[in-house]
């Protein structure tokens, strides 16, 4: 399959090409999400060199396991980013990643995942702005709770200790933050409300 053909593939079809062992498909996946994956890794580990290792591990994980990918259960991008995040946390804190969860519950937002490069760029930029806006609309302590958990790899207990608040408070804040974020994304038409 030519590079041009690969560029036209939807993410689920790209996953099939990956599963077939087509190395060029991995290149296409990298071209689509390499910058985002690297940015997430840097955000977590805080070091570009370490982030490179994390991103490589994550892409190779997807490459090796692509045959297990099921588009009905989640998105390719979500899976890749979950792999990046978990490996980054492993690298940062020496904690076992949650591999079983990587292939589960990684829904795709409505606005992305297919289309030509220019469309992807515009779409992603709008999507990023909307999510940043949603996060900034959260009360600071709620935002901090989910950011410490997601990007810092801290458990709720650790966040409670750092924040000097009861564990139950942290749990409530994080859940509320996700609930509000979800409502915001539904309101913007970025995710489906259907279960």
């Amino acid at each position, binding site marked *: 399959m030519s590079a041009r053909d690969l560029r036209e593939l939807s993410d689920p079809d790209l996953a099939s090409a990956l599963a077939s062992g087509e190395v*060029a498909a991995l290149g296409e996946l990298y071209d689509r999400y390499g910058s985002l*994956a*690297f940015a997430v890794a840097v955000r977590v580990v805080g070091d570009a060199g370490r982030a490179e290792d994390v991103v490589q591990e994550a892409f190779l994980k997807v490459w090796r396991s692509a045959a297990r990918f099921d588009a009905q259960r989640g998105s390719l991008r979500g899976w890749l980013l979950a792999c990046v995040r978990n490996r980054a946390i492993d690298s940062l804190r020496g904690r076992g990643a949650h591999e*079983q969860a990587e292939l589960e519950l990684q829904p795709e*937002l409505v606005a992305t995942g297919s289309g030509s490069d220019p469309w992807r760029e515009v779409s992603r930029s709008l999507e990023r702005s909307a999510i940043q806006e949603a996060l900034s609309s959260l009360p600071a302590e709620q935002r901090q709770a989910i950011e410490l958990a997601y990007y810092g790899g801290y458990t709720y207990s650790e966040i409670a200790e750092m924040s000097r608040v009861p564990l139950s408070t942290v749990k409530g804040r994080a859940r509320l933050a996700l609930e509000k974020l979800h409502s915001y994304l539904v309101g913007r038409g970025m995710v489906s409300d259907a279960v």
Partner: protein
Amino acid sequence: MRSEHEVMEDAVAAYLLGAGEPGEAETVRAHLTGCASCRELAARLSRAAAALPLAVEEAAPPGRLRERILAAASAEAPHASAPSPHLPASAPLRLPRRPALVNKRGSERWLPLAAAAVALLAVGVAGGIGVSRATAPNVAAAHYSLNGSGSLQGAAASVVDFRGTGTTLVEFRGLPAAPAGKVYELWLIPNGAKPIAAGVFSPDADGSKVLVLPRDLGGISVMAVTVEQGPAGATQPTQQPELSGSLA
């Protein structure tokens, strides 16, 4: 006092954020199988959790990272057992039109196989190997060399085909910069068949370049380089190669 179910709902959020206590994930997964309302909650909150990494401003990774990843994948391929709707399992991997797998020599983050390959190349060069074969310990590798003539008189390349891994390294040295608007193009020429374009490249300032090809050299009898119109190169050579070598 919070109910047991409310406690579990908080645990679902923790699970989705990867922030649960050790062992909690298994409890949550078990609970989700039997609790429809928590499954609905998980479906909702997972959409929010999946959005978190998308808020990060993208950052361009170093160019070498793509090369590293693809070279590592090439060394593992083929890995799939399931037939693909796009490419039959028995079909050969196609070479990329461009040298997607190009690495600057001296990169500090080579994958082990590539590092071994560079070491092998170094041994081959130091030993003055011409068109010859050698087998390295643990890795079956065939070595070849390309020699320049005419305007590329001072140029040469060492080639290592890692048999069985689907990876070939080509290390160029002494290459002058291509004329303005032109690029070098690498060709793999099978016996009695048309040349196969294996990618375009430009040498580094010191005249060196390392290409990693995601294939072996089975069935290829000659490797050659021509100067072609940039940036995409040509589909077939437009001139006699001035840098080439036999793989026989």
